[in-house]
């Protein structure tokens, strides 16, 4: 159990001399608190697995340091790092029984027999593997095998963190929920730091209390699900989290006003010192835009279609070339295929070169 600090950590598969754009993991400095449930979220190829493997020691970072409770462990091998990791595909040792599989990490570390038996029994109970402890592990189904992999990660009581690399990929959807709740329960019970890599936002948002969003080798935001939703620090976060994603519109922003075409949208804060030459956009979640009957003073949009999700309806609209989604109140119909868009000023954010700009009150 430990706090994990990453200090100016970066990794390039092509070596440090490669241009920084090609780094699989761009320099990052951050702290993982002891006992936290983290999700590392991002699309395929964004560097999340690289980051995970760097923490577990499978990859030695080309730059920077990793500290466990303040101790630099960067040069240490995986074996000496006290880290547990569960992989995408279940790894089990064919010749061993389920119990022997669970005991393997302890046996390798020379833990006394009695202690091993106690831990294996406990983890077997937590994972509902008790009746199978004496069976050969090869005969089990994928989800049972993944539970064993999981168990091998949890069986050591002294691990600094347990890392999960998309562990539910091979599991049937209905069992995914079960296993995920199990993980959450285990996290509460065992007080372990858990880092969970996934590209599925539902998985990330339900599992973690802190979600770390990665994009193109960079950590773009780390925060609670609510923070990610309300205040995306990067247009990518806004777009990636939420369904449908955040609307991003190129705009001219001056003071408390954003201009799109000739139309003015009021802002809650004042943006006076935007970086010159930057690409300025505004972002607003579809939940905070209403598509209503066109009226003077409202931005007019063409309606492509209306998606009825049952609980809520989203109008897919178009302003110039930009496509947007907007909440469409019950009973709203359009006679001529156009709608007026009403923005909630408190939820309109301004982005300069894709990064969130904090306005002045």
């Amino acid at each position, binding site marked *: 159990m430990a706090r994990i600090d990453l200090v100016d950590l970066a990794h390039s598969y092509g070596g440090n001399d490669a241009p920084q754009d090609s780094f699989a993991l761009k320099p990052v400095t951050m702290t993982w608190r002891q006992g936290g449930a983290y999700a590392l979220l991002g699309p395929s190829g964004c560097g999340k697995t690289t980051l995970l493997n760097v923490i577990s020691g499978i990859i030695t970072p080309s730059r920077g340091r990793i500290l466990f409770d303040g101790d630099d462990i960067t040069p240490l091998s995986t074996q000496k790092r006290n880290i547990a990791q569960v992989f*995408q595909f279940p790894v089990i040792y*064919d010749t061993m029984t389920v119990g022997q599989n669970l005991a*393997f990490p302890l046996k390798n570390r020379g833990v006394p027999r009695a202690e091993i038996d106690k831990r294996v029994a406990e983890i077997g109970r937590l994972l509902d593997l008790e009746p199978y402890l004496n069976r050969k592990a090869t005969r*089990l*189904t994928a989800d*049972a095998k993944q539970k064993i992999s999981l168990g091998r990660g949890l069986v050591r009581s002294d691990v600094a963190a347990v890392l999960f690399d998309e562990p539910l*990929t091979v*599991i049937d959807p209905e069992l995914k929920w079960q296993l995920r709740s199990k993980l959450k329960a285990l996290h509460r019970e065992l007080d372990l730091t858990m880092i969970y890599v996934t590209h599925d936002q539902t998985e990330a948002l339900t599992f973690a209390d802190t979600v770390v969003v990665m994009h193109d080798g960079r950590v773009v935001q780390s925060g609670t699900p609510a923070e990610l939703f309300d205040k995306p620090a990067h*247009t990518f976060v806004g777009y990636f989290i939420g369904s449908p994603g955040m609307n991003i519109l190129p705009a001219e922003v001056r003071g408390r006003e954003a201009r799109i075409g000739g139309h003015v949208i009021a802002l809650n804060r004042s943006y006076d010192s935007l970086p010159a030459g930057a690409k300025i956009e505004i972002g607003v979640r579809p939940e905070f835009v209403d598509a209503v009957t066109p009226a003077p003073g409202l931005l007019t949009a063409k309606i492509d279609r209306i998606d009825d999700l049952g609980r809520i309806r989203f109008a897919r609209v178009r302003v110039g070339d930009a496509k947007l989604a907007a909440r469409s109140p019950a009973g709203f119909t359009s006679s001529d295929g156009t709608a007026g868009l009403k923005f909630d000023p408190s939820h309109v954010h301004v982005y300069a070169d894709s990064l969130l700009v904090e306005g002045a009150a």
Partner: protein
Amino acid sequence: MDKTVNQKAWFLVAPVFLVVAFSAVLPLMTVVNYSMQDTFGNNQFFWNGVGWFKELLDPSTDLGGRFLASLGRNLFFSLVILAIEVPLGIVVALSMPRQGWTVAACLVILALPLLIPWNVVGTIWQIFGRPDIGLLGYVLNAIGIDYNYVSNDIDAWVTVIVMDVWHWTSLVALLCYAGLKSIPEAYYQAAQIDGASRWAVFKAIQLPKMNRVLLIAVLLRFMDSFMIYTEPFVVTGGGPGNSTTFVSIELVKIALGQFDLGKAAALSLVYNLIILIVCWIFYTVMTNAGVERKVQAESEPALDFKASAGLKPVPALKPKEGVA
């Protein structure tokens, strides 16, 4: 629905039947025919029933004594080369590089001995081991080791065994290497995380994953060494005395040296039968090893969960288009 009876379909089988008859059945039956008779040449045959077979299995007769002795030597030879080649092949495979140009280099070097014809291998070692002009024999004698495979039984055996190891360890190594390469990287990573030592990795991952190819390697090497003829014949000619006379060498001596067709035919059939039985045992073991696992997996509706929870790829979250 009644089936149409049309016996003409048999004609379609006829070509295969003819080919098999001429290539396998007739020659085999000729041998069976010989094994029941005695001949003194001139194409004159005398009925002998199972006399040769009785003699063959009776160690007190000349034929039986020679057959059983050569069989014993042959089995001993096979066991020795298996005991050397299998572990050695595993060690070679484990120490081979996993990537880079060295892989190709290693593969070529390993494959080289396999490509040399048997009698050439025999000739190479025959000359290599000669005490007067052979590099090996000359050097050994020069440093004070009295080595002469022509006169000393043990030297002859050592030469034949070392030659076989030199010739065929590559095969075992290549098979094991293929088995090792098929182990996903995640297994090694997981073992690292679990703190496994090199030996534990070998025992828990590499050896179990290799057991199928190892069975094949053992089968191939056993069969080949049990049928070995050319190499020892070229090197030692079965000598000194009879010390390296294996079953096939004995067979050729009886059939072509003494022209005892009846005895040779009976020996061939028994020899053949032994090989078939061993093959069958291996085949059964190999297929059962796989089938057993499958049946067990199916018969247990695996852990209260749906048995269908196999390796189904889950559709990934659709990447959104036009992300900045």
